[in-house]
């Protein structure tokens, strides 16, 4: 998916906040356009804007004024139908989504109906819509991290590094203040811009651009926390109670948490280090122990998606019947067999039995 938001655009505040009772899509809203499970696109709506999808072009004006959650449909011309079909072949699971109509290969000219949905952004949908600038912490992990760190709306959270900002959105939704650090300057700038567009920067609250400090709560810094620690100019005391380190060498950053101006010194605090390799985990445990952390626990989250599937069920008696018929046909010769079969069918129809129905394949819903 391509981010279609202009670099300098400033959508309406509160993109990630629940809508009011009216639930109406407004001009300049940042919305997520759901095209399929694997194609969700962030768009800022303008009166004159256009949105190109595999189902053709949608005018932003067709979307503005609708309720969030609305389906916006259009009839596809045959050219688009063809493209849609090719797409469907590749990706059968998406068939239901985005396209409705009979599968009629003969009449390509027939108009088909294609649609998109306009959705309010949530951190989870945002994660799905992201161009993968860096590796992403997925919702299976991030939800668990949030719960284990016991993050609530009172928590001050430290996150290093910011990366794609995907997890920052999730933390920001739940926590009090989020201090996030990114050592890669370009990535920091990208993330900062994004947070600004999403109305999540604490600076905007300070500047009076928004009065919802539950939402505008992110403070982002360009920083190598391993070398330069966590202290920042904006605040004297970070008073963090939750720390999340997604760094190649978290053990280098852990000693920097000892500065009394970083962690809240007057309450229980928690840290989570996220590493792919066991060797990293080992060094991290060493650093945590050396720096006075206790109750250290390593865990791994395994998440899975399920889907219902259709399964063939065959009956033994059906199979036997087919084999008997084949044998008889061979023994009698083809023409005799047809005669015989006809007679037998006539006899059986009288008895209300239809022997010809060799329905070998019956479908049942099952799952793996």
């Amino acid at each position, binding site marked *: 998916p391509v981010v279609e938001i202009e670099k300098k655009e400033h959508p309406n505040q509160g993109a990630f906040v629940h*809508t009011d009772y009216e639930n109406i899509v407004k001009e300049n809203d940042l919305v997520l356009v759901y095209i399929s499970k694997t194609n969700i696109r962030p768009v800022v709506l303008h009166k004159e804007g256009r949105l190109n999808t595999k189902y053709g072009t949608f005018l932003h004006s067709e979307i503005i004024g609708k309720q969030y959650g609305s389906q916006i449909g259009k009839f596809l011309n045959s050219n688009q139908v063809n493209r849609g079909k090719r797409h469907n072949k590749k990706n059968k699971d998406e068939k239901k989504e985005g396209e409705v109509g009979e599968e009629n290969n003969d009449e390509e000219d027939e108009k088909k109906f294609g649609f998109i949905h306009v959705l309010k952004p949530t951190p989870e949908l945002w994660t799905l819509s992201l161009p993968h600038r860096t590796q992403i912490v997925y919702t299976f992990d991030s939800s668990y991290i949030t719960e*284990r760190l016991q993050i609530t*709306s009172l928590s001050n959270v430290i996150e290093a590094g910011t990366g794609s900002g995907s997890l920052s959105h999730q933390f920001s939704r739940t926590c009090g203040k989020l201090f996030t650090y990114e050592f890669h300057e370009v990535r920091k700038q990208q993330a900062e811009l994004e947070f600004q567009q999403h109305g999540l920067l604490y600076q905007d609250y300070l500047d009076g651009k928004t009065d919802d400090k539950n939402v505008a709560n992110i403070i982002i810094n360009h920083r190598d926390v391993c070398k330069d620690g966590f202290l920042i100019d904006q605040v004297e005391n970070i008073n963090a109670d939750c720390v999340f380190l997604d760094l190649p060498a978290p053990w280098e950053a852990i000693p920097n948490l000892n500065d009394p101006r970083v962690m809240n010194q007057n*309450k229980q605090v928690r840290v989570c280090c996220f590493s792919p390799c066991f060797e990293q985990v080992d060094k991290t445990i*060493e650093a945590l122990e050396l720096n006075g952390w*206790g109750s250290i626990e390593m865990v791994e989250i395994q*998440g899975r998606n399920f889907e219902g599937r259709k399964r063939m069920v065959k009956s033994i008696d059906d199979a036997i019947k087919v084999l008997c018929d084949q044998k008889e046909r061979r023994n009698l010769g083809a023409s005799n067999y047809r005669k015989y079969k006809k007679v037998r069918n006539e006899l059986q129809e009288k008895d209300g039995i239809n022997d010809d129905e060799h329905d070998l394949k019956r479908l049942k819903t099952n799952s793996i």
Partner: protein
Amino acid sequence: MAIDPITHISFDKYIIIQLPNELYKIYNTFTEVIGLGKYGSFYSKDIVGYPYGTVFDIEYEENDTEDQNKKQKGKKEETPGVAIPRKDDTAQSLEITDDILSNNFNSESNRLLIDQGSSIQKLSNEDIELLKEQNTRADKLISNIISNNGNFQLKTKQSQQKYLIRKFRKFSKCFKVERCTPQNLLKFLMDKNDLLRINDISLESIALQLNLSNIQPNGNYLVMDETGGFLIYSILERMYGGKEDDETKNGTITIITETEHPQLDLLKYSNYSDEFLKKTIKYISVMELLKPQNEEFVRAEFLRINEDLNINELLALKERSPLQQRKVNWFERQMSLIKISNTVDYYDALVLQTDFELKELVDRISKYVKPGSPIVVFCKFREPLLDLSNEYLMKNLNFLNVKILQTSCRPYQTKRGKIHPLMTMKSNGGWLLSCIKVIYQDINSVDKE
């Protein structure tokens, strides 16, 4: 400075105490003396004011010791000890430290070890009790255990460690105090082998359900909770974090109950005040929601029950007797229920944990959810979710992005040099289904290009 009851141990609160055997138990600081059984007892006032997460050692007065020794056999000790907070130890861990252990590891193989059971332990259990009473701190206790076990040096490092940890758990007198958060409450129920009460939900599943439900401090959520209040508490925790008086936060939870009176006994451990819960949580039964009355009917019912008393007159009164006030309350509650049952497209998420037949249920209550908002269903079994997904949601154009998910957390033994997955036979923690309620556009209303 006043104690912050969210971060510090306070009076009149439910607290969780972790014992040396690592199990969690719930106590209340309303109790004057908290007794931990064989791990000792102490005055609850001694621990008030310290931050949650503090480890305390129980120490006994010197002059009590002799008495204690005499009493030991016959009855339980009666004088509580003094709970001393461990200071200058940021780890605040009940675990036995490696320093103590590593001093005693010399033998390299257990080739020559023949298990002689408990006969080889020169210190008897009574001796150990004695030591324990005499203010012996954990490390001293352990070196005593080691030097009195004749076979100890013959064991392998591993069995030495196992042995020490077992003894330590049995004899040390210390404990850690934790806040009664939903996460700690879950651990408590797990230790109590009582997960059935919360539908066998795991921490990772409730976490995923909360994230997918997009819980925010100002949202309004429609919930069914068959976990005795655990789900509600978890949602409240994300919204309010224990703080009742933040004016910037005003989200609500509306609970659909199966019975007339909601069964949310676990909610009491949340330590929220009744006023706060009353303001934040609304109850409505399936009957009141799905078979609603209208105002006329309620007025008629009021007349029938109260024998021709006019509600309008009561409402107009400036001062009411308690009985009159109860009658007004009844009427106003009926009105509010009618309002809820008529308010469709309103809630920011539908969060379900229920044994009801799901297709039927979702079909009838999804109308209350705001379009574009999530519906997230937890179930202990997979089949009902597959059924809901395949036989209802996927066939219905009012639902988008239907997913069935499972998440499970694998704990590891987290000792350096001995890292390995732990074999746990716990249940699988359940399944989740999530989808988004959307508005279906009638195909005939669309212009053909």
